[in-house]
């Protein structure tokens, strides 16, 4: 951080609350009788259950060609010879593209290097003979049908000159590490002398935890349908970052941002993976070269080869405490992997920065570089695996000093952010623990492991804290159009990957404008709409909310101007006016009002349309803003076979105000289920001899299926965060955090065995 940035950060922290977004709470927080908070069914539900929601690979285009990719079988080196003539002569083949004939492309700006950069890596794609990972696409075949393309790519033969590659995480660590960075800041924090205090602490744990690589595996395969018209590129994409994708493609192809039109009305799951990878870029390049539209659908293996996942980690957690459980020292350090061609460090210490009070801290993430597909963010990057280590260690310490693990956590509850010193915007984790413990009947837990048995099954209870920060990124914006029939269209370049965005935002906008839900249309998933809104970091709800707040303010001001002196609203300042019953009213006197229809009719306008940008997201530097949850797990472990079954699970959440209990509960449960996968089965296996992923399929990369998942109970405090739009914080990622530790702690309670390397497979319990 530069001196100027540091000074600015300090100034924002010390500024009066009223200067900061959220300084005066969103008036919508007080609205308790509207659509917000209602368990509304998804508005796109009928389309989805009828199979009518159209995904990226389902848009018909005249003259379409189908693409297939040929992947490198070595991790590093160069192509000596690539033989394509057989493929070129195969039936139906339109084009075989390799580095020898690909159009000239600029390097892909990698995510994080520019506010709109979306590249998974920063390579110049198919521009030379270099190989960067085992699985890199080295040729693309276009044919009249998918079958013809698939067959033709199988006829391609490549000779490689192989260089020594770094493909072993352990070996790379032994060879030396480099400091990690996240969002431009070093992943390193020291407060006090943690090593000295740890050395003298009367109670301590010091353990190493390991987590493997993970792949997102949304069920919709990564796909795009692309077509050029002159220098204009049209992309039907599966994207959680349409504006970012369009800007990045424009940089690669040397055209203007407006010349790339990306839409993505429905996304079949993303979890961090549906950004810009080589397949869309290669598809666009091939479409340009062949002068034909292209559909590219990665095979499931192709997704593993082309789209990166979560990087592996090796983490040390050392806790030093007094006999009463108070922490003297928290040390959380370790190593994760990245590649020479990306900038994403899995930031596993983030949760540890704000969860507990301690006299001293030493937190540090180091990195090594592997020659693999670029790793990327996957649901709760950092927290998902970081909380496994930290919350397992807390459980180990509780066992060590003979204290209830919930009480140990509450004993170390901080009054202010323990490492930044900022006040909390809202923090209800203690309430979540108490409510959860009562509902889960935690008092029945036996502190001594192996105390409960049911036939061959050992039964244990475990718990862990879950946490995820409130984020809001710059770039939020919205356009609101109100028509004379009293309807509103709100447009934001946001995304619906199943989070319930379209539904929850329609509820919010209806309340803000004083309309019913069927009078509101929410348009999204299209680069022609305003805003730079990443569906990531659980920030989309806040980003859209802030954009709508700004546009609404502009709308009210415009409306008041139009209303003029003949309106009951005459003389009111925009800040004194809100949406109510199909129009505007004075906030302190609901009888002083006029409908939108009446205002527009009198002004002889058919509609009014305003667009505005959201405030700069300074609130995160002024308050410490985090969601939390208390996770409770009951695990049954078969003493004969070592199988683990999760028989009960409860998540007790504190995530600000819940906008839609139905869709939010699904997000919580979905996160927890992905957490069960992380705990028990998910592992991307790399063949360290060749750098090739060995299990690139859903048959061999296991994810939870119906029978793995019990009825999952979720509850929440529903306490509004006064510093956020709508009083809400994101709900998409927190569900996966804490789950790995809750399961591991329950398995320990059942068996007395402490598993510190995920996943907890049966071989580790026998």
């Amino acid at each position, binding site marked *: 951080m530069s001196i100027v940035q540091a000074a600015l950060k300090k100034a924002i922290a010390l500024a009066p609350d009223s200067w900061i977004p959220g300084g005066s709470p969103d008036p919508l927080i007080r609205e308790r009788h509207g659509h917000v908070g209602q368990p509304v*069914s*998804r508005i*796109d*539900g*009928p389309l*989805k*259950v*009828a*199979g*009518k*929601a*159209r*995904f990226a*690979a*389902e848009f*018909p285009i005249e003259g379409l060609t189908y693409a297939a990719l040929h992947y490198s079988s070595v991790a590093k080196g160069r192509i000596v010879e690539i033989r394509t003539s057989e493929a070129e002569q195969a039936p139906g083949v339109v084009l075989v593209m390799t580095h020898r004939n690909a159009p000239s492309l600029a390097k892909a700006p990698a995510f994080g290097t520019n506010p709109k950069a979306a590249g998974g890596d920063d390579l110049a794609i198919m521009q030379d003979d270099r190989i960067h990972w085992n699985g890199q696409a080295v040729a693309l075949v276009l044919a009249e*049908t*998918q*079958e*013809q393309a698939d*067959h033709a790519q199988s006829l391609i033969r490549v000779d490689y000159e192989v260089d020594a590659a770094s493909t072993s995480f352990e070996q790379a660590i032994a060879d030396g590490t480099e400091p990690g960075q996240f969002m431009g800041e070093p992943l390193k924090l020291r407060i006090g002398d943690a090593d000295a205090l740890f050395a003298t602490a009367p109670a301590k744990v010091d353990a190493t935890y390991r987590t493997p690589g993970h792949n*997102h*595996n*949304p*069920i*919709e*395969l990564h796909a795009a349908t692309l077509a050029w018209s002159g220098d204009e590129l049209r992309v039907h994409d599966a994207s959680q970052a349409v504006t970012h994708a369009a800007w990045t493609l424009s940089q690669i192809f040397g055209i203007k941002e407006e010349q790339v039109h990306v839409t993505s009305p*429905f*996304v*079949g*799951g993303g*979890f961090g993976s549906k950004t810009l990878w080589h397949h869309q870029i290669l598809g666009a390049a091939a479409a340009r070269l062949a002068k034909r539209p292209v559909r590219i*659908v990665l*095979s*499931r293996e192709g997704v593993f080869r082309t789209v990166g996942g979560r990087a592996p980690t090796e983490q040390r957690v050392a806790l030093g405490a007094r006999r009463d459980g108070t922490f003297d020292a928290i040390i959380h350090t370790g190593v994760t992997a990245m590649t020479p061609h990306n900038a994403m460090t899995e930031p596993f210490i983030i949760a540890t920065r704000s969860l507990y009070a301690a006299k001293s801290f030493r937190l540090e993430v180091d990195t090594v570089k592997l020659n693999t597909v670029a790793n990327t963010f996957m649901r709760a990057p950092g927290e998902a695996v970081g909380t496994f280590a930290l919350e397992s260690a807390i459980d180990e310490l509780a066992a060590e000093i003979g204290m209830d693990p919930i009480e140990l956590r509450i004993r170390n509850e901080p009054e202010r952010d323990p490492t930044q010193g900022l006040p909390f915007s809202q923090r209800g984790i203690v309430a979540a623990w108490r409510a959860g413990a009562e509902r889960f009947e935690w008092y029945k837990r036996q502190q001594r492991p192996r105390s409960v048995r049911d036939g061959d099954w050992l039964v244990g209870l475990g718990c862990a804290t879950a946490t995820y920060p409130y984020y809001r990124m710059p770039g939020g914006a919205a356009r609101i159009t109100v028509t004379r029939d009293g309807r509103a269209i709100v447009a934001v370049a946001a995304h619906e*990957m*199943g*989070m*319930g965005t379209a539904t929850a935002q329609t509820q919010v906008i209806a309340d803000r404008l004083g309309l019913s839900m069927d009078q509101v249309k929410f348009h999204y998933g299209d680069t022609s709409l305003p805003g730079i809104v990443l569906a990531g970091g659980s920030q989309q709800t806040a980003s859209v909310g802030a954009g709508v707040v700004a546009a609404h303010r502009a709308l009210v001001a415009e409306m008041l101007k139009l209303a003029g002196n003949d309106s009951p609203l005459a003389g009111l300042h925009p800040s004194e006016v809100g949406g109510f019953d199909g129009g505007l009213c004075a906030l302190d006197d609901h009888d002083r009002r006029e409908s939108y229809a009446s205002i527009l009719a009198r002004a002889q306008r058919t509609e009014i349309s305003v667009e505005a940008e959201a405030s700069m997201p300074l609130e995160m530097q002024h308050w410490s803003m985090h969601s939390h949850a208390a996770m409770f797990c009951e695990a049954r472990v078969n003493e004969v076979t070592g199988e683990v079954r999760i028989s009960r699970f409860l998540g007790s959440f504190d995530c600000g105000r819940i906008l839609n209990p*139905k*869709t939010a509960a*699904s*997000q919580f*449960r*979905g*996160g*927890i*289920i*992905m957490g069960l996968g992380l705990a028990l089965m998910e592992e991307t296996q790399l063949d360290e001899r060749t750098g090739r992923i060995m299990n690139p*399929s*859903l*048959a061999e990369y296991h*994810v*939870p*299926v*119906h*029978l793995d*998942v019990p*009825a*999952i109970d979720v509850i929440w405090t529903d306490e509004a965060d006064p510093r956020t739009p709508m009083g809400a914080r994101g709900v998409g990622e927190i569900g996966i955090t804490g789950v790995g530790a809750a399961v591991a702690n329950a398995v320990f309670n059942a068996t007395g065995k402490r598993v510190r390397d995920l996943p907890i497979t049966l071989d580790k319990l026998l």
Partner: protein
Amino acid sequence: MQFVINGRSLDADVDLRTSLLDLLRDHFGLSGTKKGCNQGACGACTVLVDGNRINSCLALAVQYQGRKITTVEGLTSNGALHPLQEAFVAHDGFQCGYCTPGQICSAIGMANELRTGVPSYVTADVAAEAITVDFDEIRERMSGNICRCGAYNGIIEAISETLGTIPLPEAKDAP
């Protein structure tokens, strides 16, 4: 080649390598049936053939000429959703909606298997005349349909609620 899909007779001249899934999606524009793995591991492509559920990605189209194929598009009648489709919406049995058509077709095929007494891995008494339908029995039988968003609880609720209302498929030799 001649196909009977959702009660309609359709002709197509396709490559013999074409899967039933690609036939539906690429040749007939019936994109309600989804491709999630193309190797029989995820269940997103589940359709009904003569009332039985199959993974259409593992089926060659050429083998299914003349068989009665039902896809998610064939479940609505006169634009009205099937009770199971309604229940999926009511119980939030999906998030992104991509695996949903497969889950729904699979559940309808499963209802048939349950009624005809086909036992499963969790059936306590495999010799029993009738299957006792409970939470475990439905979960086990639906485990071939992966939902990565994790809407499993809602899916099972929706199926449990409507299981009794799912009609038996018509006999194989029906016209």
